[in-house]
């Protein structure tokens, strides 16, 4: 069926099989491969994107469910309103600054989930950050530096 949706500020109209997962649509149909797929049970969060500003695991949604919606993927983060061209989003910058990524596979989902989380809770405690990111798995960092990155992005002091 035909769907029309906005991704990173650009409108797309595509014909999709109704069963197509949104994550596969973004990756295989639109070529937006920054959204990674790390599991098949909606457990790892690597595929997290924003739909109308809220974080969603895109492997849990069908492409047709995104019809008429406004999506942001990791490719759209560095161009978000208020950020100059070519500059990283503050959350991306905080991940870089705090060494919050190693292999980078969970990173797009982490950044999207963390950004959405801070929208809801702008000044979280470290414990709240951990709970807020519970749906996103990382195998490299042990989460230590991811938590520091999110705290840094929230403008709060962090321990080393």
């Amino acid at each position: 069926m035909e769907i029309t949706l906005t991704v990173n500020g650009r409108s797309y109209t595509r014909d999709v099989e109704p069963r197509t997962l949104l994550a596969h649509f973004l990756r295989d149909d639109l070529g937006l491969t920054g959204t990674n797929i790390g599991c098949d049970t909606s457990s790892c969060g690597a595929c997290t994107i924003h739909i109308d500003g809220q974080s969603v695991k895109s492997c849990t949604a069908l492409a047709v469910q995104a019809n008429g919606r406004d999506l942001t993927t990791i490719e759209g983060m560095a161009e978000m309103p208020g950020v100059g061209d070519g500059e990283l989003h503050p959350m991306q910058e905080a991940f870089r600054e705090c060494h919050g990524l190693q292999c980078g596979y969970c990173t797009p989902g982490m950044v999207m989930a963390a950004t959405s989380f801070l929208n809801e809770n702008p000044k979280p405690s470290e414990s709240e950050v951990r709970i807020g990111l519970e749906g996103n798995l990382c195998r490299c960092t042990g989460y230590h530096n991811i938590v520091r990155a999110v705290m840094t992005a929230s403008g709060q002091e962090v321990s080393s």
Partner: protein
Amino acid sequence: MTTVEDPPKTPFVGQPMKRREDAALLTGEGKYVDDIQVAGQLWMGMVRSTFAHARISAIDASTAEDMEGVVAVYTGVQLAAMELWIAPLPCAWPVTDDMVNPEHYPAATDEVHHLGEIVAVVLAETRYQAADAAEMVDVEYDPLPVVASIDDAVAGEKLAHSGHDTNKSYHWPLIPDPDALDAAFEGAAHTIEADFVQQRLIPAAMEPRGVLAVPAPHGGDVTLYSATQVPHILKVMAAATTGIPESKIRVVAPSVGGGFGAKLNVNPDEILAISLAQKLGRPIRWTETRSEAAGSTHQGRAQQQKIELAADADGKLLGCRVHIDADMGAYMMLITPGVPLLGSFLYTGVYAVPAFGFTCDGYFTNLTPTDAYRGAGRPEASYAIERAMDILANEVGLSPVEIRRRNYLAGGDHFENLDVPSTLTFDSGHYAPTLDRALEMSDYDALKDEQQRRRDAGEQKQLGIGLCTYVEICGLAPSRALGGLNYSAGGWEHATVRLLPTGKAEVVTGSTPHGQGHETSWAQIVSDKLGIDPADVEVLHSDTAISPLGLDTYGSRSLSVGGVAVSMACEKVVEKAKLIVAHQMEANPDDLTFEGGTFSVAGSPDKTVTIQEIAFGAFTAHDLPDGMEPNLQEQVTFDPPNFAFPFGTHVAVVEIDEGTGGVQLLDYIAVDDCGNQVNPMIVEGQLHGGIVQGVAQALWECASYDDEGICLNPSFLDYLVPSAVEVPSFKLDSTVTPSTSNPLGVKGVGEAGTIGSAAAVINAVCDALSPYGVTDMEMPATPQRVWRAIRDGKAAQA
């Protein structure tokens, strides 16, 4: 950093430089295998065995063949007839000459030996069509008895491979002096014996494995993109397995989303993709699903250990005797049989033990093959000795701290090039300072006071404090040593450094990063050595067309072998540049100094030239010394004279809820020594992740199989990879004891965290439960196990 010995002061090495890899990975520009799309590609869908051990009686692919988008379905028998391979999948480590090694082909033809073994493949136009069609291939099986555990394998009543009359693959002994070992135990004041289970683990790198094989339009060349840690090894092995000439195979590891050993192999899917692509002339691809991975990617650990210690009346160790039964799984993969051997040398840990003996029996089961998983043999060894030391402390009546202090090699003092009874020479060590610092950082005495207070008050939440001082063996490896262990390859690493005409440095490394940040660290080394800006250094890797020589990344080897090769190649570049400068300035080379990228002549401060300027002169070759080849390009293949032996002390603090048996890791302190550090930020990151993987073994993870060899928790719904909620932030510090195995004095840190942490956590759990007479806790320490231990302990005391 607590500096025990001053590290070298340099502008870049030793600095926590931000990673150059990050920008692409943070913006979605990183290209993993599944991100690469090519025209004309076919998706490979795997039909996998739903039995752990069975005979294939019939395969009906007719429905699948008629489905939309399906190009072909090939059964294992048909694949075998297509002459896609000339040899079985390789095992590069036949540990004994008489090792039993059943042939392992990319697809089964008559008998399957583990859940998930490939029995047929589907080729279709899309991802979904391939998956749909694979579901519709009808396979009939005649079930055979299943060897579903090491105990089954040892009992030997059922056979994992019908064609073999035993489940045992090999017996490997390392007993340098049997008489001395027996004597040590005979006269000992104290002896202890303990059995430990190293449960099966699923490595679970966040990026599932995947392959894409792209044939060239003509000439028979084929490029294999694979989520692999070992493109160089894969290229050699793919040639040997498929018969495609090595010169026609290019292997590329693009961005790779973690490995942890699980991408250190030569897999059926890789061989199928490259062979079918070349045969059919179309690109062939496959991407693993997470739930499929339990049967398509090797697993780790899976050992049963028995360790005995003998000590004198003062608790000083006299002997250590170890036997392990190791679960190979259904087949020998690339280094399956050698993994336990990597640990064999470390069962005496950081301690002076006069007599030592180790034996290992390798057994086949009808489970997914095992192979390297972060630490590969060393976490198992470290766990056994560090758990046993706590048990011995209890037996002797000493504290965990004191038993360790009394037994450290060299009395805990600094040493270099020390022979240990397991036949190795430790490069350097200085153990006591890591213990001192870890105790200080954890406020150990205050923790023990708090523990006592809670016990006295009868509180529901009890405290446990666990210690571990580990040593590990990394920097794989001196090639001769590997030869002595029957390993079929060397342990060197290659680097080429060239200064381009524009003054930029191009560094080609045989190391193959998959998250470790090699580009950043190698640029730091090169910038220091050549005195140029890191922005002027490009690091090329992970593509056998660009980097033809290499032995890849595993065993915490990259820096201490590959990084050292880069450093040495830089020195050769400087030496050649110096000859050019001397020639052009009509100076004696001995009168030239090189600092900060600039050559100057002694006594003539105004006569200077930068190495980047010399690069252009070497390129034009207008004015070089007679007989000198143009260009500034040097290569080094470094074969380390010895392994490297990082070490450290970890302290785990756990809180146990006696009502639920739940274990919470409250605090974790680690003081590690990996020799000189190139990038302390990266070092700490490696430790954070490594620690959590060891903690996860201790508390949560276990690949569970039923009696029929069916995996009960293949997905992330049931296999408990920890999230941020389960773990605390870490308190890290380091000491610096340079290695004597290489000129940079570096060791390795990729696996150290994992090697130290499982023992520290279980020692803490046992410490918390000691009032109930609990002396051991099997991993993972689930709430059920802990609750039952408390219940049984209370009942015994009542």
